[in-house]
């Protein structure tokens, strides 16, 4: 990777001290602007529901402070804890299934060179640019007929949908794996399956992490696909939030604010813990994809 060359040495300061001070001030102000929406939501989640829409930028005071009422209301209206569990289950297992199976097929279609493996490769690449609306109606009907409309069946659908990007990216990296090592393992008498998991997959690990992160970000936040397949029987977090809006009459702003805060907490915690991997993953994913 060429990028490594000047990334490790401390970059030379290209600007004067005074310019640097100005830039830091500007960037700091921008950072506050970036964080402001999250603080406004957090602040409003502690205000009574009738004091939110009119003055969202006012701090809660003695009259408007509502303690944890919004959180209690919101959780009872949306069942957010169960939504969290469904979201977590679907995301974790979809990502595992996608990484496991797409790395295998990517290796297979890169190593077995015939006209139909080439065709498969182009089909996966093609799948990446097709918008979801193009397939959503027939897909949800087929999923109904095949009884895939539950939190386990949806894993199959995510594998099918995640396959485009994931196979395409894995193929790019399999090409860089030296084939000699595989041949040596084969001569030593191991079967292709054993050889794949003992020799090839360990070398694909950095790519597997990138693909896991990209798919996790997409599946955790996905709204339409689970909504069409699971409806409100098994609500994921985005469905639960949207469900709050969908009720009759005016929306309960207090509950909404509290649920937005609860929906953001896991993401922000996860981001702060795995920041390095995430940023590396999305950069690598973008550059290869």
């Amino acid at each position, binding site marked *: 990777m060429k990028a490594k060359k000047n990334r490790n040495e401390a970059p030379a300061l290209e600007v004067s001290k005074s310019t640097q001070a100005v830039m830091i001030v500007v960037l700091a102000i921008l950072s506050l602007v970036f964080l402001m929406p999250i603080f406004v939501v957090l602040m409003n989640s502690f205000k009574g529901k009738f004091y939110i829409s009119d003055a969202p930028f006012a701090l809660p005071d003695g009259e408007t402070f509502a303690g944890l009422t919004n959180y209690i209301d919101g959780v009872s209206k949306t069942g957010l804890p169960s939504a969290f569990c469904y979201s977590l289950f679907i995301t974790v297992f979809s990502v595992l299934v996608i990484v496991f199976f797409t790395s*295998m097929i990517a290796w297979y279609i890169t190593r077995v060179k015939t006209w139909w493996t080439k065709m498969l490769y182009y089909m996966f690449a093609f799948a990446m640019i*097709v918008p979801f*609306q193009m397939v959503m109606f027939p897909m949800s009907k087929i999923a109904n007929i095949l009884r895939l409309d539950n939190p386990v069946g949806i894993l199959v659908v995510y594998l099918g949908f995640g396959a485009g990007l994931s196979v395409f990216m894995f193929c790019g990296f399999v090409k860089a794996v030296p084939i000699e090592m595989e041949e040596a393992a084969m001569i030593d008498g191991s079967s292709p399956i054993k050889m794949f998991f003992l020799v090839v997959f360990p070398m694909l690990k950095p790519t597997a992490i990138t693909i896991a992160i990209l798919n996790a970000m997409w599946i955790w936040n996905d709204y339409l696909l689970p909504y069409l397949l699971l409806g409100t029987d098994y609500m994921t977090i985005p469905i639960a939030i949207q469900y709050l809006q969908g009720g009759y009459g005016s929306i309960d702003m207090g509950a909404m604010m509290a649920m937005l805060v609860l929906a953001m907490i896991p993401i922000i915690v996860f981001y702060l813990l795995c920041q390095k991997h995430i940023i590396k993953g999305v950069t690598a994913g973008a550059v290869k994809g």
Partner: protein
Amino acid sequence: MQKAIKKYFPVFALPTLLAFFISFLLPFLMGCYLSFCEFTTVTDAEFVGIENYLKAFQDENFLNALIFTVKFTIVSVLSINILAFFLALALTKGIKGTNLFRTVFFMPNLIGGIVLGYIWQLIINGVLYKFGATLSLDAKYGFWGLIVLMNWQMIGYMMIIYVAGIQNISSDIIEAAKIDGANKVQTLFRVTIPLVMPSVTICLFLVLTNSFKLFDQNLALTAGAPGRSSSMLALDIFDTFYGRNGWEGVGQAKAVVFFVIVAVVALTQLYFTRRKEVEN
């Protein structure tokens, strides 16, 4: 070796292929066929020729959504890429706090579209309230609201890709430009920008396709209000399928048109910006 591996098709390839067939390939082919049919579920389809396409193009909501989407895409592609590029320049000068700023700017990207939509609904309605307006009063509020939201979400992501591109430029080249007497503006336009063209290709592609396909944010921020005037294409297609009885065929025809537009626009953009890339 190839022969030995080939036998293992059922283990290596079959699971993904089956899933891909069920949830992508078959629905895609059915979708193409169904766009020429009248149907309410996939089993009662009746061939009607191009009637659905005619209806789609006579539908004011669809044409309005198309114009809205195109305008939105142009504005968001320009604003996001320009702002992200300048942020990336600022964050590659080696100033203090670079990592902290990067962390903050990237964070909104991880928050899902539905949550983002409701966050910004609160903020924008709060600002508009002071002027006696709301998001559901006029489509232009929804338009600019979506622009602000999209910038907030995507600037950090694009910035990171530009940072990687700028760091990839060898410092010798910048040094050489300086020695040859190029000033800062010349260096930027003649050296830095041509050398980050691979990043530009990726960023344009990502913002272009994401803007065109925007759904969740649109649904949560305005849901098309007032009326259907702030609906983008994806939301309009969804409403045609699930909000209007007997219009499933038209919805599918709209979806095919949508797919063709996305594919043509994305591939054209890739073709043109790839040609502008130079060797580092």
